[in-house]
């Protein structure tokens, strides 16, 4: 095992800074033939930065990477590919309008050649699919594939290039527990064939299941390295968060009256994203409803519906009686606080000031404007109020919001929607990509709002987050909504079966 010839990859004191932030601080790591090494760490620990350096998307400020004993030239994805490094990105790098085969072949042949025949290429892809258990049709358009199938295409891309080292970035984030099992089976076959795997994750149980060795990152530094066999989940968790863990203590809820009711609501599909299929859901005062599920299973449609962006195709939505009109502005008027999934694209306007972003959805209300004229002074004092009350770290209300960190941006959005005292809160992935401190802050605000009598709908892909916060859990799969499960009444595995679509047939 300690034969140096077995060493396939070595990172030596990789350092990368972004301005004042040191994303990677002298990270060293080795990978041997036939080994699975897990790179474990919280969001923001520096995992993705390291990946991007490995693959040549970023150039490290210091340190070096060796693959099979040869130094890897920095900033050159082509060299990484040639050296036998294959990467499966968290956000797939596939062209939707091209076929599976085209996506796999892309860049594998000399551009100015005629290229191998389609039949030859297809035969190779089919052989790889068979050998590694990666079923996917070579002529299917990628846009028509499920998320799990797309991931298989990503892995096939690497295998087609004869990759000897596979790097997977949060590969299970988009999979059901059952799909994740199938992925693990594929990875085991790959190891058996002598490939090596670097597996990046923040999910402890997966790491325990697949990895031989764990390297734990925190704040850009390696804080520990242990053989999986000699450690426990608890020990790894402690290493990951370093005692900062502060999941807010959730007091049991005292649910009140129904504030919003969806009754048999169906919405049209939007491309590959499914719409809602006869969804019935109650949101009650003083209760957090958690919506679990693999992303792309109708959560977006539900969020859009409650945000006012789309109308129900059939079925009804009622709040104190049926809704006559429905639009984003009507939703705001009815007292719905909407925390959007993507705070950069949907939640804020990057080049607007904090003041402008603070009144982005309330500017038309009296107080901020009169007869079509803006009252910027009132808007600015509103923004200053949020900055103070929600601890938004910023140069001031006149600063452009693009200068803020994700956490501070989210706090401003939180202030914007919570200040008016909403009846209903739609929190769509409210803590994704935030650091530990900001996560605790956002979650405590949501719990406080619940305790104050608001109905909260929490949408998240992170089952742990849902199980920790929600009083009632629903699962979505292909646009269908499971019955509500009280806190603690279902295990993660049981919820996983619902996420995979089992159970609906009986329930429906």
């Amino acid at each position, binding site marked *: 095992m300690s034969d140096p010839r077995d060493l396939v990859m070595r990172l030596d004191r990789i350092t990368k800074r972004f301005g004042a932030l040191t994303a990677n601080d002298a990270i060293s790591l080795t990978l041997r033939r036939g080994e699975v090494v897990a790179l474990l760490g919280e969001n923001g620990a520096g995992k993705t930065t390291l990946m991007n350096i490995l693959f040549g998307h970023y*150039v490290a400020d210091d340190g070096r990477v060796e693959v099979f004993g040869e130094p890897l030239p920095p900033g050159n994805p082509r060299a990484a590919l040639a050296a036998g490094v294959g990467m499966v990105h968290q956000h797939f790098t596939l062209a939707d309008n091209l076929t599976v085969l085209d996506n796999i072949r892309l860049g594998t042949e000399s551009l100015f050649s005629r290229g191998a025949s389609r039949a030859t290429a297809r035969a190779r892809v089919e052989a790889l699919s068979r050998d590694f258990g990666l079923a996917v049709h070579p002529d299917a358009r990628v846009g028509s594939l499920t998320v799990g199938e797309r991931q298989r295409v990503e892995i096939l891309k690497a295998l087609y290039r004869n990759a000897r080292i596979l790097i997977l970035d949060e590969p299970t984030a988009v999979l059901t527990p059952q799909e994740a099992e199938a992925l693990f089976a594929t990875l085991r076959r790959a190891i058996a064939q002598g490939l090596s795997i670097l597996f990046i994750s923040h999910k402890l149980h997966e790491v325990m299941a697949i990895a031989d060795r764990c390297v734990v990152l925190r704040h850009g530094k390696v804080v520990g390295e242990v053989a999986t066999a000699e450690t426990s989940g608890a020990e790894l968790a402690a290493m990951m968060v370093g005692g900062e863990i502060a999941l807010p203590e959730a007091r049991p809820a005292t649910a009140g009256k129904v504030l919003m009711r969806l009754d048999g609501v169906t919405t049209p599909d939007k491309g590959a994203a499914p719409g809602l299929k006869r969804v019935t859901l109650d949101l009650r005062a003083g209760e957090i409803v958690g919506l679990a599920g693999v992303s792309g299973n109708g959560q977006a449609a539900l969020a859009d519906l409650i945000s006012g962006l789309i109308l129900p195709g059939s079925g009804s939505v009622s709040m104190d009686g049926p809704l006559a009109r429905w639009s984003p502005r009507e939703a705001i008027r009815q007292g719905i606080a909407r925390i959007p999934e993507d705070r950069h694209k*949907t*939640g804020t306007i990057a080049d607007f000031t904090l003041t402008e972003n603070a009144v982005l959805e309330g500017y038309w209300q009296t107080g901020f404007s009169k007869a079509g*004229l*803006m009252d910027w002074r009132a808007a600015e004092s509103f923004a200053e109020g949020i900055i103070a009350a929600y601890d938004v770290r910023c140069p001031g209300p006149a600063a452009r919001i693009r200068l803020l960190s994700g956490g501070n941006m989210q706090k401003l959005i939180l202030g914007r929607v919570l200040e008016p005292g909403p009846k209903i809160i739609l929190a769509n992935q409210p803590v994704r990509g935030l650091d530990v401190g900001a996560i605790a802050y956002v979650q405590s605000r949501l719990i406080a709002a619940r305790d104050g009598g608001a109905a909260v709908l929490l949408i998240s892909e992170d089952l742990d987050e849902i199980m920790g916060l929600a009083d009632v859990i629903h699962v979505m799969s292909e646009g269908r909504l499971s019955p509500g499960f009280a806190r603690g009444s279902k295990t993660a595995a049981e919820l996983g079966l619902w996420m995979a679509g089992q159970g609906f047939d009986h329930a429906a």
Partner: protein
Amino acid sequence: MRLDPIAAPPLSRQIGLPALALVATLLVAMALALIAGADPLATLGLIAKGAFGSKFAALETLNRATPLIFTGLAVAVAFRAKLWNIGAEAQLYAGAIVAVLLGTGALGAPLVLPVSALAAMLAGALVLLGPVVLKTRLGVDEVVTTLLLNFVMLLFVSYLLEGPMKDPMGMGWPKSPALIKEARLPRIVDGLRLHWGFALALIAAVVVWVIQSRTTLGFEMRAVGQNREAARFAGMPVNVVLVKTALLSGGLAALAGWSEVAGLKGHLSSDLSPGFGYTGIIVAMLALLHPLSVVLSALFVAAIFVGSDSMSRAAGVPTYIADMLLATALLFMVLALMLTRYRVVWK
């Protein structure tokens, strides 16, 4: 090569780079003069002299700037909301047609001027409304439709001038009858060849500035332009905002044609605009889409045109040097604008 965003660009960069773009344009001007076999510095001097060297020249520059302020504002308003109105030329002619329709006796004083101005704005707005409705309803790209409508409108004007709107006393020239005296914009100062259209353009710039910075509509237009998805999510009626933007933009462009007919020419001919609509794009971009700067940039652009005409007669450098310079200035300026916010890193 890589571009690194600069979090908070210093003021020196924000002012220095656009200034550098203008300097670079002047260098190009000198190079072109050299190519044309003229003395570079003398050519620049002749352009400046031609634009501002005499009272007559300066007034000519102000007159030339008037329609450019209007079309520049029209483009600036639209581009702010990322509405790609490249059809200011067509909207300009719509305004000019209305000026003739109502100004040749259909209406008398004192109604004719205000009514025909408003009607002209309405006509210009309607010309842009078509492409915008196609965009919001069907997703048809407005760049191509507005561009193509320019050609349609020019042919329509040609038809009018050879048919229903032909001047019976025009000795066969395709031009409209002259406006009645009451329908003409008076001169600002007696004896000086500068009409009230110029003052109106300045007022329009201030009004647009107030709309953009002080009204809810202006806030919506800017939000829609910066990030349509976030604006929609925040409850802004994006399509309504785009339509309102189009009405304002088309109306402003129409005033350019209206004031040229009512203020300067007194009649409509198919060479009324030497591309004022297209030049409006340059004016707006050089002004960084700011309505008050549009006035300055229109003066600059007008000076280049007027100055080049006069320089061309004296130095023999083709007058198209003006168009080359302005196109160069446009490209330099968008580059400079980007470089205020990104640093180029060569690795």
